[in-house]
């Protein structure tokens, strides 16, 4: 197994790639969180001129391949005079994509909060916005945590797609090393192990987090 001995030489490089993977995942999931929340609120509470575009957005980004979306941003936008760096494009495309999925989770969670909660908040004299902010969303966030954790892990894996626009994330770095030494198999076994560990650590931490923020009696019907 000389190949795996050789793996020592490229571990630092892969670690560098891993760092980029984590950064891209964190950036796109945050972007998706904000945008997804807005989309969900738009769909649930917005008037038709707002809710319809929000729906169209969600359907488009959930119904088409991520790779196509990435190429639209990286190769397509310059047609319209918008030039973005590879890194920005990667984060933007992944963020726009996960926003659509997160929007669906948020919408489901918002709708799972019992109707009486909004009424009770309004009865206290809160405005609609206050009620949403202080009563609905705090509950919805807790309900959404399991699906949201899944989405985060999914994005961690899908972020590997940015290698196709020559970013040197874990995947891209692996590809570059493998191409240079033409030992794809060993390199990608190691890359796979990196992802396995990464996913394992992340999912365990999320599970821990879930337990920390659990509120007795609050769960989505059918989600658990």
């Amino acid at each position, binding site marked *: 197994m000389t190949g795996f001995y050789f793996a020592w030489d490229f571990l630092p490089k892969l670690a560098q790639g891993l760092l980029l993977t984590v950064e891209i995942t964190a950036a796109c999931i945050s972007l998706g969180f904000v945008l997804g929340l807005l989309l969900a609120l738009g769909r649930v509470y917005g008037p038709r001129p707002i809710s319809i575009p929000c729906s169209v957005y969600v359907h488009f980004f959930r119904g088409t391949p991520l790779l196509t*979306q990435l190429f639209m941003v990286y190769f397509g936008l310059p047609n319209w005079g918008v030039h973005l760096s590879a890194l920005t494009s990667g984060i933007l495309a992944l963020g726009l994509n996960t926003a659509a999925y997160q929007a669906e989770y948020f919408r489901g969670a918002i709708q799972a909060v019992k109707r009486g909660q909004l009424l009770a908040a309004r009865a206290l004299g809160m405005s609609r916005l206050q009620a949403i902010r202080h009563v609905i969303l705090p509950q919805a966030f807790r309900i959404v945590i399991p699906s949201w954790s899944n989405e985060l892990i999914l994005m961690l894996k899908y972020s590997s797609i940015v290698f196709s626009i020559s970013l040197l994330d874990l995947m891209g770095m692996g590809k570059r090393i493998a191409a240079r030494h033409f030992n794809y198999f060993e390199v990608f076994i190691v890359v796979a192990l990196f992802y396995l560990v990464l996913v394992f650590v992340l999912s365990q931490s999320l599970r821990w987090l879930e337990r920390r923020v659990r509120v007795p009696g609050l769960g989505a019907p059918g989600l658990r």
Partner: protein
Amino acid sequence: MGFLGQLGQVGHYLPMLLRASLVNLELLWALLLIGFSLGTLVALLQVYGGRLLGTLAYIYEWVFRSVPALVLLFLFYYGPSHFGLDIQSFLAACLALGFRSSAYQSQIFRGAIQAIPTGQMVAARALGMSRPRAILHVILPQAFRLAIPGWSNEFSSVTKDTTLAYAVGLNEIMRYAKIVMDRQYELAMATFIVVALVFLAFTYSGNALLGQLERRFRIPGLQMPGATL
């Protein structure tokens, strides 16, 4: 030239793109077949396979769910040649995405099997059915029905993921879209939008079909616990 004009120009390439999309559909079909049969097997092992086989099935599921599709594609494409075997990109993609899907499908089927009340198995055994027979005639027919909604999600997801085979050089639609772009860069956006529309058509017709399947096979009183009608 306006965007509509560009879309019109992409029209010339449409037949080529659509023909390439057939490769995506072939891949989809093959990977679903692998994913379905292997996924069912893995789920059955997880539920009924005992300690050893059950654990192995869980490990299998965990590995194929944790490693990104692209990494699996590379492993299946370059792996065999490492051992002196030549493998075509189509076969590599079928196996990589098929095994991966089997892991996701096993999770769906396992959930469905576990949602069936234990009394169903007990009643079947009380009639004198062997375990395999009871699974075949009583458990699986119910589990597959319960699994349709979850399975539809997986279907959408792998339909789109067939484009990832682009990475191992499969002559599928994204590869041709890239070829169009390389020839006429000003058509890049329009081309990718057309590709996106093709996939919208795929995912929507697929989901409509599955929705029909679900309604067709819906049985009063049979639903996932907690599901609302």
